[in-house]
Each structure stands twice: as structure tokens, then as C-alpha cells.
């Protein structure tokens, strides 16, 4: 059963450690940005939603690029686990949104981050496969930050918020929705074209 498999994936050590780290990061941001007394502006949502998005995008890129040789099932479960991170982080986001009164509608980061995770997972996966085929596998660990820096640079170069998660998560950007929507479809197609099980995993599953 898919949900059981997802439960098992989340139980694995890497995911548990990352979930603890993810929550610790969100708590740190809340500690730093939540106003301590009266008279202060509550801007916690902006910092929190940007940190959360960038962290999840980095994780998506990293897991995508590192999973270039993994099976469809493993990749899909990893992607779903990352989407669960997003889901578990929503209470932080909503709490800070409720107190901050930003101009951005509440639905926007929920939708945008879901698409970001899916889209950049596929980008990471494809980039990882390209590097692996070019026998540059040693560069895969630095691929995630490099891609993130690259998309930020592209946005600066074209002069509009298209892909950068830093800017697009706090402002409604239909162009970003279209771009990440297209990349999400690309991710789905890439996953569908991946072999269901690799030869190593078939032995494990038995």
C-alpha cells in the first residue's frame, strides 16, 4: 500500500533527521522574527515562508539529483515525503500568517511551495542524470546549491520573478505558477519514464 510505504520512507533515519532539522530551522526563524513585546511589527511570516520554501527546494534538488539511479518507487516516495514536510510545516506558516497580516493571499505559498517541491525535484533528477552520464558524479553534492543560485541569477537577469523561490513565494506570480506547473509535469513524465525497480532494489524488496 502506497501510504504504508510512505510511512516507512518517513521512518527512515535520513528523513527523521531532516524532519527534526526542518522543524528546528522553523523554530529558530520564529524565535528570531516573532516580536517580543508591544510596539513591534510582526513580519515573521515573510522570513518563515521564505526559509521554509528555500529549505524544501534545496531538499528537493538534493534528493532529486542524488536519486539519479534510484527506482520510480523510491523517487516517488521521497518526493511524497518532501511534500509531507511541507504539509507538517503548514501550521507554522498559518500561525505566522495569522499574526503578520501580509498582503499575499494565504493560498499562494501553499500552492506555490507544492509546485516548487515537485518541479525542482524533477530538475534535480534530470541534472543528476546528466552529470552521471557525463561521468561527473562527484559534482552531484554541490548541484543543489548551484541550481538554486542559478535560478536566482536567471530571475535577476531577466528582471522578473519567474523561478526564484525567494521572491515568488511572498508575491503572487502567475508566471512562476506556469513555469513550476510545467516543470512539475516534466517531473511526473520523468518519474513515469523511470524504471519501476532497479536490479539492486528488487533484491531488497524480496
Amino acid at each position: 500500500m502506497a501510504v504504508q510505504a510512505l510511512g516507512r520512507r518517513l521512518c527512515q533515519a535520513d528523513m527523521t533527521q531532516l524532519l527534526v532539522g526542518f522543524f528546528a530551522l522553523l523554530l529558530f526563524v520564529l524565535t528570531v522574527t516573532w516580536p517580543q513585546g508591544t510596539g513591534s511589527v510582526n513580519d515573521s511570516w515573510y522570513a518563515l515562508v521564505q526559509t521554509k520554501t528555500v529549505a524544501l527546494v534545496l531538499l528537493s534538488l538534493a534528493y532529486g539529483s542524488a536519486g539519479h539511479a534510484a527506482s520510480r518507487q523510491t523517487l516517488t516516495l521521497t518526493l511524497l515525503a518532501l511534500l509531507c514536510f511541507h504539509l507538517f510545516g503548514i501550521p507554522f506558516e498559518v500561525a505566522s500568517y495569522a499574526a503578520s497580516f501580509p498582503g499575499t493571499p494565504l493560498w499562494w505559498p501553499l500552492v506555490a511551495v507544492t509546485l516548487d517541491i515537485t518541479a525542482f525535484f524533477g530538475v534535480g533528477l534530470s541534472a543528476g542524470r546528466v552529470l552521471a552520464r557525463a561521468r561527473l558524479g562527484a559534482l552531484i553534492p554541490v548541484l543543489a546549491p548551484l541550481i538554486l543560485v542559478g535560478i536566482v541569477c536567471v530571475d535577476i537577469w531577466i528582471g522578473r520573478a519567474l523561478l526564484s523561490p525567494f521572491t515568488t513565494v511572498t508575491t503572487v506570480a502567475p508566471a512562476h505558477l506556469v513555469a513550476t506547473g510545467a516543470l512539475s509535469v516534466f517531473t511526473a513524465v520523468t518519474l513515469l519514464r523511470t524504471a519501476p525497480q532497479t536490479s539492486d532494489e528488487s533484491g531488497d524488496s524480496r
Partner: protein
Amino acid sequence: MNAFAIRSLLLLLLASGVQLAWAQARDIRFELGFAGQVVADRWNPLRVSLRDQPAARLVLEIDRGNLREGEQIVRYEAALAAGSGLYVFEDDVFVPTWRQLTWSVRTPEAVLASGSLDRRQVDPRPLHLVVARDVGSQRQQLGDEARVVDVLPNDLPTRGAAYAGVDSLVLEGTTAAPSARAVAAAAAAGVRVVVLEPLPERFDPLAGLVPAEQQRLGSGWLIRAPPGDLAASLTATARLDTTTLLAALSVPPLDEPPQGRAQVVVLAAAAAYALVVVLLVRLGRLPGLLSAVMLAALVTVGSWQALRPSEATTLRSRSLSIGGGTLAHRLELRSVFSRSQQEVRLPVSARLLDTPQWQTGRDETVLDLPRWSAATLALKPRLEPATLRWDGETLYNDGELSLGEIFVLGYGVQTQRSGVLGPGERLGVTISQDSLIPDSYSALVAHLPMGSALARSGGQIFVALSDREPWAEPRSEVR
């Protein structure tokens, strides 16, 4: 021949057009201030008269900016009704020190009339209004520096705010009698009204209004004096400075952001949630995952309920009602704190204290507030029945609110009746051992004369001014 006829027709049409425009301009009359004298940084009376005009809008634009900061527009708009015959629109407008002041009466299609006031006309000195056939002797007594304005009895408004820039009103029996209501409004709004004796019979209603040599009404004075004693009468009494009183009323500031949920509480709840989710996911497998998802949904809804204020806007107000006799002059501050970026429409006519630009009208003030910002408004001053009133050495509460924290300048805190004066109750004033000024009044008392009684109900502060000035030394025993 045809060309001549066409030219004649064109000339005729042009002439009739010019005549129509001239007639329209002539049938619209705009008056700001008393006899065209505007007091800068004060409320001024405004009067627009229209005869046989279509429905139009009055637009008054005051640019208070400078070369460094650019344009800062204060805009006043009001609807002017259509109709045949004479239509008169009257209101009071706060006029800040201007760089450019323009007005226009316009329909959607055309500007019917317009005009402007020159920068050189900016003058913040208060006016001395004189209602007399010959103002020469009064002008001499008031001094060369005084802004003396000759006004007609019928030109005196009955609205308190119109007199914000008026220091004194001198009435002589040589003209038609002004309305007692207008004179009472002037006095209650803080003006020193001097009625020069003797008065003819037609001034009897006014004489009834001023039974004593000098008495308080609202925040001003009604004085009877012989013509030669005008200067002495004005020297013996002082006008309350409403600008400093408003500044004192705004201490402590009204526009501080409201208190949100404490950081410790939020962090503790967030940490507890994170810990439970990690434990559920790590130990619970499928049931744990489903429980964690349900917990996330519950905490999302709960955090929204707990942290989202019901309104994005917080309104606070503080008022000062300065009474003398049966009338009071009410000054009111209102602060608007907006957590979100929005346009706030308040159903009041007001000026903004700390914002350079605003838009107002007869019954509405529009504020364009950025996220997490505040604005403080000073509402148009108005007159009302006095709530706290002196009668001899007894204080009366004529209002409908229970008043607490009763304090009399020179007598201290009044602790009789547990310090509370209920509606309809009275209080004999005694010298109190407790002369410590309550925090609510500490900024105000420096600007009030001795013998002023202060009481409050929430954010409403009531002052009863004493008739006697200068106030006598505190008596040893009072009731």
C-alpha cells in the same frame, strides 16, 4: 453673403458662450475664513453659494509640501446639490500652512468656477472679529499686531469649529444683533466674547446670555465691558490653547500597535507540535503518519483561531470635553492602527496629526494606510452639553456616565464617594491630602487654569472650568 452670415452666427455663439461662463462664475461664490481672512493651521469656516447651478462637487486642494519633500496634498471634497434658486453649503475645513491652495466647483463635464489663495496670504495669527459700524476704536485698543476683521452679524456661524482660529469677538450695539446661538457657539468654542455696553433693546437676547460681568461658557468667556475697557477685559482673561491641549491629550501615544500573542507561548506551542509530529512519524508508521497529518490540520485551524485578531483595524479614541456653564467644547483624538494594507474610511471630518497627506469631506475621512501602520486624527471640534459642571463650590455630573478619578487643580484628588460621581450626582469639593496628579491628567493640567475640575470615564476626560479667574487660593474648609 453666406460667409458673412456664418461669421455673424459664430460671433453670436461665442458671445453667448462667454456670457454663460461669466454668468456661471458670478453665480458661484466661494468664501473661506472670515471676510476672506484664513488662519493657517486652524479650522476655518467655508461657505459656497450657488444660484441656479447643476449638481457639482467642491474640491479644495491644499499643497502643504515643500521643495525637499515635494507635493503633500490635503484634499477636501463635498457634494453640492443641484437646483433652481439659491443653495448655500457651509462647513468647516482645517487649513494647514499651504504652499498652494486651490479650489474648484466642478461637474464631471466642466469646471464651473475655480480660484486660489496665494502663498503670501498664509498667516497663523488668530483673528479678532468685530461686529460694529465703525471698528476704528476697537482696532486701536486691540493693537497694531492684531488681525482685526470687520464682520457682519449674519456672517457669524453657529458651528463651534468655525471659531478655532478666532481669539476674540467684540460686539457693539451699533449694528443689528447677531444671533445668540452664534455668540454662544463662539464663546463655547473658546473665544473671548466681549459685549460692549450699553446695548440697545434689540440686543436683549444677548444681554440675557451675558448676565454677569464675566462668565465662562464652554472653553471661552462671555464678558460685558464699557467700550474703553476692551483691552483690559481681554488681558484679564485668557484663551485656552486647544493646540497644546490636543498635544497633551495625545500623551501617552494612542497609535501604538496592539499587543499580540507572547513569543514564549507561540514558541512553546510550536515546539510541542514539532516534537509530537516527529514522534508520531518516527514511531507510528502508518497510523502515526495519518495522526500527524490530522494533527497538522487541527493545529493549523487552532493557530488561526488563536492568533488571528477579529479585525485588521484597531480604533482607539480619547476625548477632552472642556465645559464651562452648560456647554462644553469637545476635542477628540482617534487613532487607527491597521495591520494590513488598506484604505480606511472613517465617518468623521478630521485632520491627521502625523501624516502629511489626507482626504476628507463633510462626513468622511479617507486614509490610505500601509501594513502595520497607524494614523492619529484630530476630529473636528464640536460643542455639546457639559457633563461636569461647577455650581459655586459643588461639582455636578449632568451626563449619563459615571465619572471617576476626580481631581481639582489646587484641591487635589477628591476621594469622597469612593472617588466616583454617578449620573445626576453632585460632590462638595474639599482640600485633599493627596495632591498627586493622576497619570491620565499629568500632561493636561499644565495647560488648564487653577480651579479646573477633571474627571474621566474610560478614555473620555471631562473638564469643568471655574468662573473665577485668577482662581483664589485654596480655602481652608469647603463643605
